[in-house]
């Protein structure tokens, strides 16, 4: 299965994604503006007016929010990158990609490489903004495992986006996915509120949500505050990532033009 995996092809698709990323300035601004507003308005607004009884003393809401918003940024940018297969289909460039004598696996590899790079750039920009607002990283060395968590989140949701895009004929399904997949995953991930003391149905849904473990892992590493053990976070993320890679590759291989 991996014998046809070509790094040149991965590089080629990655390079294309980088060029597009650098050129689409408005996209970058939009991608950063939204999380920025979440941090600035929600973080400051709720943080200064409300007291979350589940937060330990010394951790204010803004600190709590930063890893959550990083998770959100990764979720959005990765899903969009995966779903951009739809745009490529619409504008015809997918034909050029799929007819080339390269394995589907290398193509997916290239798309994911591009998406992970742009996702990490954006998530780290959010982290920088967070630092500016007063966020403090518990220990600098924790940044490295945190990067791995970010990568796992990015890979998983890019593959999920590719899987959806492979099954959709046109762009009409995009709004549905936005409203019924991306938004619920975000709201139910514990990005915005602590998981302690939730009503049981909400807690149940949050535990089903893979992003929950990503956000929890980031929070554990960057803030030293977590709901699950870091081992559990990693295990679930890795499993989810493999499952999405399998699904994305399978569906993408079988998609028609």
């Amino acid at each position, binding site marked *: 299965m991996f014998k046809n995996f070509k790094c040149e092809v991965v590089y*080629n698709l990655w390079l294309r994604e980088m*060029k*597009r990323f650098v050129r689409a300035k408005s996209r970058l601004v939009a991608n950063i503006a939204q999380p920025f507003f979440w941090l600035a308005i929600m973080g400051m607004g709720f943080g200064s007016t409300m007291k979350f009884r589940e937060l330990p003393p010394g951790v204010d809401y803004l600190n709590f929010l930063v890893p959550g918003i990083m998770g959100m940024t990764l979720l959005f940018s990765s899903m969009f990158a995966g779903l951009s297969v739809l745009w490529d289909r619409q504008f*015809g*460039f997918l*034909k050029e990609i799929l*007819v080339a004598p390269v394995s589907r696996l290398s193509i997916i590899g290239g798309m994911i490489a591009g998406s992970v790079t742009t996702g990490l750039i954006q998530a780290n920009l959010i982290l920088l903004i967070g630092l500016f607002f007063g966020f403090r990283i518990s220990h600098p060395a924790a940044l490295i495992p945190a990067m791995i968590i970010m990568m796992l989140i990015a890979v998983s949701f890019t593959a999920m986006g590719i899987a959806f895009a492979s099954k959709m004929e046109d762009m009409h399904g995009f709004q549905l996915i936005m409203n019924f997949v991306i938004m619920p995953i975000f709201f139910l991930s514990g990005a915005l509120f602590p998981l302690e003391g939730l009503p049981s149905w909400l807690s149940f849904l949050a535990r089903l949500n893979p992003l929950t473990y990503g956000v929890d892992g980031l929070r554990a590493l960057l803030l030293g505050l977590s709901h699950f053990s870091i081992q559990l976070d990693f295990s679930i993320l890795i499993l989810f990532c493999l499952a999405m890679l399998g699904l994305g590759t399978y569906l993408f291989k079988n998609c028609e033009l």
Partner: protein
Amino acid sequence: MDAITVKNLTKKFDDLIAVNDISFTVKEGEIFGLLGPNGAGKTTIIKMLATMLKKTSGVARVLDWDVGKNPDEVRRSIGIVFQDPSLDDQLTGKENLDFHARMYGVRKKIRKERIEQVLNLVDLFGKKDILVNNYSGGMRRRLEIARGLMHYPRVLFLDEPTLGLDTQTRRAIWEHIIKLNHEEKITVILTTHYMDEADFLCNRVAIIDEGKILVVESPENLKNMMGEDIISIGVSDGEAFSKKLSSLNWIQGVSHGDGIINLSVKRGEEKIPLLINFAQKENLAVQFVSLHKPTLEDVFIDFTGRNIREENGSTKTLIRDMIRARTRK
């Protein structure tokens, strides 16, 4: 080995049978044309051969690789210019070509050379660093073709390659296709609406209508099948002239129009001097002469029963129109 083998190939879209049980082969080194009106099924055939679309039934092979069972091997042997747009308009022209060359494993040194070569071919060298988003429609089309001609595959599919291009560019592209065919031994399968294009390029053409192949022949044979050339002649006294014509046994048919006499003859170009001499001997002044040889278009109309741009009209009236058109020219 045949470059393309198609046997009883069928493609259905729900109720619509887009390609209906067709069979043909293309020999290696051939330039083969698919000719047919809109919706005939040309693109569908090419898409199946290029592994972009699954067939409903039948056999389709490219260089003996089955398109369903060995799509990777097929993709490794082909190149294609699509009918629909397939450029990334957020990249520059050169970047689109570079992307293509890398996908097809063209080595770095050759890559630069080829990019330059095809950019010059379609006269886009000066625009190479502009985003495709800012290209005109014709420039985009030219870039698509340039891209398709960049790596040298064994079998090249061109789906209406020169649609909407200016004459000069078309000529340059035709010559390049012929050069690739001769020098690189590339087999070419092209679809077109332009009869002159098929006539100029193709060793053989298949005329397709409503998913069926009506005939596969060389353009010459097809034109010969249409029979005689038509000479239209005007002389000072048409009545007298046409009466006298009956003494010439090489004239196979005569018809009159307003002051024009139409003669059907074989090898018309040789008959024109004879006719002029004949008229002079009879002391009649020749006012004009024109020759119309059957074109591929005539053949096409004859087989499909309609003009390539028209969708309706009965066969009979159209053949009549055709004859009228032929004699008028």
